[in-house]
């Protein structure tokens, strides 16, 4: 992907649309796996949630306005319409946080991405009453932001490595939040499905 690979550049709505369609494509391949992972700890709908969210985003992609703030807000509204499961609502929450920081801008410098991720992560943490360290998607997002800080040039690969490390780091810990909390013992040894979902999303951004 042009934006996040090997060079610092400006992000526009074209890049957002491209990212959406890449992720939508990848999510279709992995939905079953995500459902199965979620099924071991929760209600097994995570793959469906992502599919619904990105199918809808792909639908509205061409209509997204150039103003990135408005585009992220429209994306947030679209996601919150088709999904009510935690991951979908958190995704919408994160998009809304990013929207607030981007309003009026048609371009974003790629070095601004870590800040957007942190803003999203912050708002998602408030919404879901989860903290970093609770073994949720938040830990993966935070790791991604930190990787981008230190590797602004080789960004996608750095993010992928960082998320993979985070998955390993948390694998043997207990889930402390969400549906998985009630099976917290069972969650030891299993990856948090939300982190895996985030890994799928960033993986989709790497040029094949």
């Amino acid at each position, binding site marked *: 992907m042009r934006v996040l690979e090997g060079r610092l550049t400006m992000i526009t709505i074209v890049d957002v649309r491209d990212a959406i369609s890449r992720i939508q494509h990848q999510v279709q391949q992995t939905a079953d796996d995500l459902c199965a992972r979620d099924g071991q700890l929760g209600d097994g709908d995570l793959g469906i949630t992502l599919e619904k969210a990105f199918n809808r985003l792909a639908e509205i992609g061409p209509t997204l306005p150039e103003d990135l703030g408005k585009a992220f807000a429209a994306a947030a509204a679209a996601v919150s319409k088709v999904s009510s499961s935690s991951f979908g609502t958190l995704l919408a929450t994160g998009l*809304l946080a990013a929207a607030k920081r981007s309003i009026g801008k048609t371009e974003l410098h790629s070095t601004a991405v870590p800040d957007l991720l942190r803003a999203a992560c912050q708002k998602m943490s408030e919404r879901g009453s989860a903290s970093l360290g609770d073994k949720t998607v938040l830990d993966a997002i935070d790791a991604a932001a930190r990787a981008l800080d230190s590797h602004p040039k080789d960004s996608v690969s750095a993010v992928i490595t960082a998320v993979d490390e985070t998955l390993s780091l948390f694998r043997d810990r207990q889930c402390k939040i969400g549906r998985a909390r009630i099976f917290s013992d069972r969650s030891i040894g299993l990856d948090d499905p939300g982190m895996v979902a985030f890994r799928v999303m960033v993986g989709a951004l790497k040029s094949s």
Partner: protein
Amino acid sequence: MKKLLNDPAAYADETLAGLCCAHPEFYRLSPESPRVVVRPDSPVQGRVGIVTGGGSGHLPVFTGYVGRGLLNACAIGDVFASPSADEMAIAMRAANGGAGVLRLYGNYGGDIMNFEMAGEMVELEDITSSTVKVADDVASASTAERAKRRGVAGMVYAFKIAGAAAEKGFDLDKVTRVAQKAADNARSIGVALSPCIVPKAGKPTFTLQENEMEIGMGIHGEPGVRRSELKPANVVADEMLDAILSDGAVKGGDRVSVLVNSLGATPLEELYILFARVADRLDKLGAQIVMPLVGRYATSMEMTGASLTVLILDPELEELLRAPAECAFWKVG
């Protein structure tokens, strides 16, 4: 445990369509969403609106309690799943008569996130709202961590009392205050004997051996506090009541309401056997039972088991509890 349905994916939609078709005097589907049920006379101008929301599979909870002196509107998710923030926002708009909207719902992560998001959405449209989360299940967290408890059958009392307060013309602060008091004064615990089947999953939510029961199990099959062999009804009633009383003491002279609720399959006969014991125990404590409820008020489809809720009353709550109300499943006054 077998189910009468067409397409598992259409379970919630077909249920709601049937509900509104059977009782148009109480329930109307929002023109904006087949997952939002609204009282035909809502919004009432100048009155506080009460909305709730939550998963399907708990009838009469949630949407059944839309009605006069009860809720204005309800957003309904798939079986055991939160409705979307979007649907909740639609419900909030349908409940808004200009005097604000109380979001009154059970303390579940998904519902909270979506209702907060919905609140942010309608805030932009100048709809003031407040929140009361019902967290009455004493089995789900200790007294010190009350706020983490799940919301179960106690929410029926909160709906009734908040609805009566709105009907009386109380303002949003006051409706919120009495709803919170009702939620705080309600304590519940359940016992599960056999599971239910979530249509899309097609398999039981949990397993219990033929002679086992689980005290404190949640309405979606969340783990409880103790699994044991099936005990006599009086022992089960005692265990449930003891858990409630040790969390919030009931003293001689107290006035309380009691809800003995079936999780679905457990028949009225057995609820009355449990009720007789609970009534006897409370009588011995010198407490007075007011307007007891025995029946299927908050279910988990065909789950076998029962829950007990004790609501400690004060004169304000008692008056609101006794105020007239009407929906397809409960008429008062």
